């Protein structure tokens, strides 16, 4: 008998049964589900067991200037299945002053650098991350540049670099 994968609706129904009523929507053929921040790890672990074994991407959107936005940061977990090729987007919303969410590195090794990048660019803390350092910006950098309140041309960090002369180098 050929294997028929559970449909996305079945998966969402199971997720709702397990984690209570969740906000789901479909746009451009992509299914999205919003999970509360304190349950995000459990929900993602549950989804991983149900076949979404590939973490395609972890990213974030800063909704500071977005119309009708109720939360400041929206984390995006793009999941996919390597066997059934289904995709599912999991959204987790967090807010200032302490945007924190549990790290999914124990589930997917690939989340390590993706979460480091989100920390670097948005300043969202991932608790339980083994090595939460900045990925791209220098260590002494204090801001999180992809936040909407950070200006495009920076705050003068680059122009105020100390000049190294031949004597001091």
């Amino acid at each position, binding site marked *: 008998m050929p294997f028929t994968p559970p449909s996305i609706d079945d998966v969402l129904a199971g997720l709702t049964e397990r984690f209570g009523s969740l906000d789901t929507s479909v746009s451009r053929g992509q299914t999205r589900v919003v999970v509360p921040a304190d349950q995000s790890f459990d929900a993602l672990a549950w989804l991983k067991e149900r076949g979404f074994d590939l973490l395609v*991407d972890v990213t974030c*959107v800063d909704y500071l200037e977005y119309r*009708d936005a109720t939360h400041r940061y929206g984390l995006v977990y793009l999941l996919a299945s*390597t066997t059934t090729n289904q995709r599912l987007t999991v959204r987790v919303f967090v807010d200032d002053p302490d945007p924190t969410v549990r790290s999914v590195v124990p589930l997917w*090794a*690939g989340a390590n650098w993706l979460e480091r990048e989100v920390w670097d*660019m948005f300043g969202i803390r991932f608790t339980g991350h083994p090595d939460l350092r900045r990925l*791209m*910006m220098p*260590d002494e950098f204090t801001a999180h540049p992809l936040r909407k309140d950070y200006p495009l041309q920076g705050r003068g960090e680059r122009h105020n670099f100390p000049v190294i002369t031949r004597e001091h180098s």
Partner: protein
Amino acid sequence: MSIAQATFDTAGPEAGARSEDYLWTLNFGPQHPATHTTLRLVLKLDGERVVDAMPEMGYLHSGFEKIGEHLTFNQYVTVTDRMNYISPMANNVAWHHAVETLLGIELTPRCTYIRTIIAELARLSDHLLSNGAVGLDTGAFTFFLYGFYQREVIYDIFETLCGARFTNSYTRVGGVSQDFTPLVIEKIRAFIRTFPKTLDDMERLLTRNRIFVDRTKGVGVLTKEEAISASATGPVARASGVTRDLRKDEPYLAYGDLDFQICCASAGDCYARYLVRMQEMRESLKIVKQALENLPAGDVNVSIDQRVSRPTKQQVYSTIEGTISHFELSMANRGFEVPHEESYAAIEAPNGELGFYVVGDGNETAYRARCRPPSVLHFALFPQLIRGHTLSDVVAVLGSLNIIAAELDR
């Protein structure tokens, strides 16, 4: 990013000795001919054996995602060229594929075929360089030159097509900047005729070359489970037995109409990645050939009623619709209708799944333009692939992962 504070995980094969005095640290990069791009590796060596490696990035970080929030959908394509600069056409296709998914634009059949052809030509030029670089780093210089000569031919095709050899910026929302001319088609046909012979020569040079096989076989082994857990995609994952290829799994553009195979291997070492890339070039050639023979006639851009792609000069000067459309697209407050929505769309780029997560907020600029770069996830794999191998294997592993620092850092 400070190396001094970072603790090395010494649970590799050489673990056991408490005192690490005999280990020494080698700084590999950021400027080194064998890294090919600007990235840094801090290697912990026991003699010639690599005990651990700390990959580091950020040297080319130029804030592409921040720039994406300030340039319009058509302007940003010039920035995508500079991400993975050895296959810029694939990035152009990926970006506008994502934008069109957000805007809900249906392309013309001719445009899907043209984009398929150029994306596959980009794959050929990428694989020629990445395999060539593996050959170069393991001592096969001739092989690299064979590959680079053919890359020049592909550059010539792109130059004839859009005027730029390297940073093409070829696609536009709802279409492409230039239609295929008979000369372009003739050049691609000539390339399809001559390239298989070069490919045969290249395979004869390296595939069974004892030195090359010894240098790459069993080096940098990635298992299937590790590949999935680490979100590896593209040739790196397929060489480890992950049968995932978006061209088959989620057929976009014209791939659903074309006959081709997905190339996989199970060994997961550098040699398997080389073989997968070699075989993918043959499949790409098949795709280009079929797409070119079945290239549909008709318009290349979506119709001017949709008001997304610029009308031709002929339309602007001779029809009222063309004039209005041109005017509206040029005005800051009229452009296209962007929904308050967000969507993710990816293509199978030469390096893996290259996707863009685009958030629209009604403006012609993206509210957020996240690029899902395959190189980052592959570069994070590097320490586990190199542990226990020798210093000379570093370049073989690095080359076979095909890390492009500009895509890494964006």
